């Protein structure tokens, strides 16, 4: 039996805006084994991104237990949660979210600033990550000088560079054309298959979801079906 990397038990998430309460997740329970590539699908407002934020330690549940990489996240304070994220999670966003004033290499080095690695080692690791995703030749370029596909590869290199336990991707191909999207998805698939990275990806795109090993469908804050 394979080890569970994500374990959610009866997770509820309620947002309060003024006097209004919105229940986004309602008693969700889910297990994701280590090394799995999971696609989270569902209509807008179904709670996909909220679930992803909870798994990535960006947000806390209103109630329920959430354990990721062996750590109860619902019990961690702000600082501890930040340090946990730095060690265990790599994030990939739809709009890349690279620092516009930094070169690709400096962007990839960012998570390593939180480690004790010397500058030369940080640079070497960043270049290795850029090589892995196939954009080492763009190391000195700033994000504005990269195509969408290249920028997303740099973002993936940044997510990988600290060797996280889990990759959390929020619509990673949402801003890309089909060809670039397929390249990025192939890359994620390779990272999952060849390097054993656990990946959880939110997507609207059924074609993108086909690259995942398992598809989870969400509707109105609950898991609707699995594919």
């Amino acid at each position: 039996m394979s080890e569970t990397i994500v374990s959610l038990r009866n997770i509820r998430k309620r947002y309060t805006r003024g006097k209004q309460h919105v229940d986004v997740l309602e008693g969700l329970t889910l297990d994701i084994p280590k090394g799995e590539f999971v696609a989270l699908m569902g209509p807008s407002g179904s709670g996909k991104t909220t679930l992803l934020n909870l798994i990535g330690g960006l947000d806390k549940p209103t109630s329920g237990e959430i354990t990721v990489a062996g750590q109860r996240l619902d019990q961690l304070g702000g600082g501890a949660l930040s340090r946990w994220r730095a060690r265990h999670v790599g994030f990939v966003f739809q709009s890349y979210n690279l620092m516009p004033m930094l070169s690709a290499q400096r962007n990839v080095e960012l998570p390593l600033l939180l480690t004790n690695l010397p500058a030369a080692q940080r640079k070497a690791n960043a270049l290795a990550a850029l090589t892995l995703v196939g954009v080492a030749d763009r190391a000195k370029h700033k994000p504005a000088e990269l195509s969408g596909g290249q920028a997303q590869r740099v973002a993936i290199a940044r997510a990988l560079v600290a060797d996280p336990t889990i990759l959390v991707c929020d619509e990673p191909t949402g801003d890309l054309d089909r060809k670039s999207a397929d390249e990025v998805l192939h890359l994620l698939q390779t990272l999952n298959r060849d390097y054993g990275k656990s990946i959880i990806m939110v997507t609207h795109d059924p074609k993108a979801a086909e690259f995942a090993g398992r598809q989870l469908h969400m509707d109105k804050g609950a898991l609707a079906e699995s594919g």
Partner: protein
Amino acid sequence: MKFFPLIWATLWRKKARTIFTLLSIVVAFLLFGVLETVDYAFAHPSTGTSGANLLITLNKYSITLSLPFSDEQEIRSVPGIADVTWLTWFGAYYQEPKQFVFALPIDIDTYLGIHKGDFVYDDTQMQAFRNTRDGAFVNTELMKKHGWKIGDRIPLHSTIWTQKNGSLDWNFLVVGVYDVTDPTQRNQQASTFLFHYDYFDEGRSFGKGNVGWYEERVEDAAQSAAISARIDALFANSSNETKTQPAKDFALAFIKQLGDIGFVLRAILGAVFFTLLFLTGNTMMQSVRERIPELAVLKTLGFTDANVLGLVLAESLLLCAIGALLGLAASYGALPIIKQGLQGVELSPLALLPGIGVAVLLALIVGLPPALRAKRLNIVDALAGKH
């Protein structure tokens, strides 16, 4: 140090804005350096030892009020006084008001007695000066400035003293030139034009028998304070009470007649820094507002609230430190120029040191509000564009 490239790159994210903000800080600290140095000079007038054996006695209430000539004998009788001379402010210019001339009516023997060894001159020319009633002994720098030669007849316009015929224009015959022995005094003496006190006293239409101030040389500089007190005690409760002080303080006291210099300088600085506070504060706030998604990404990557607070504060500190150091360096470079403008005032680079503290304070004040905002940033809301 490992965060420095990130802070540096962030600082220059909007180059034009950073340059203009930096320029405003540089100018503010240049002004701070200049004004603080002048204020320091006024607040610490007697920091050196040279000239400590020279005293000046003037009217206690104003330099514009004179003292009777009869005081000279009484001052001379004070134990410890080596010599006494008397002088009066002539207030002269040559041809036009901007060509100021520090014309000074002197009694040759007592004046040279006080300033023994201070001047270099030709004895023959000095003899000619003694023998010429309307003769003038002029500093070489002033001679060069106006292209005067020995034998020239020079008209000076006094802004105070009318002659018996009602004219404010006085004529002098240049009979000699002199230089100063101490090169550091060259600028201070560059406009000096000496002429006979008797010629002045006899020619003026009012104020006869009065002098502007007395200058005394004491035998022991260590006794200056005690001797000053003794001189002032001589005239206490008279109609012409005196104030005796070291000669070095005289120039400062003279300028201080204009008003509370320290207050004026601090008021200017206060206005400048108040404006700077808003300008730099606004820039920092705007800069952080524009970077909210980027700060949220840093937090997503594992940067703690304290890390983000530190980054924004460090950016503010870096901006203010660069501006302050450039501004203070420029004001240090300007010290010789200011010194020329404020003859007789000793300027010290020590006065620039508080500038570092002011820069840190400024950085904290303008950096703290945006840094706290960045610290409190909610990642999920910021990434969703809800900030």
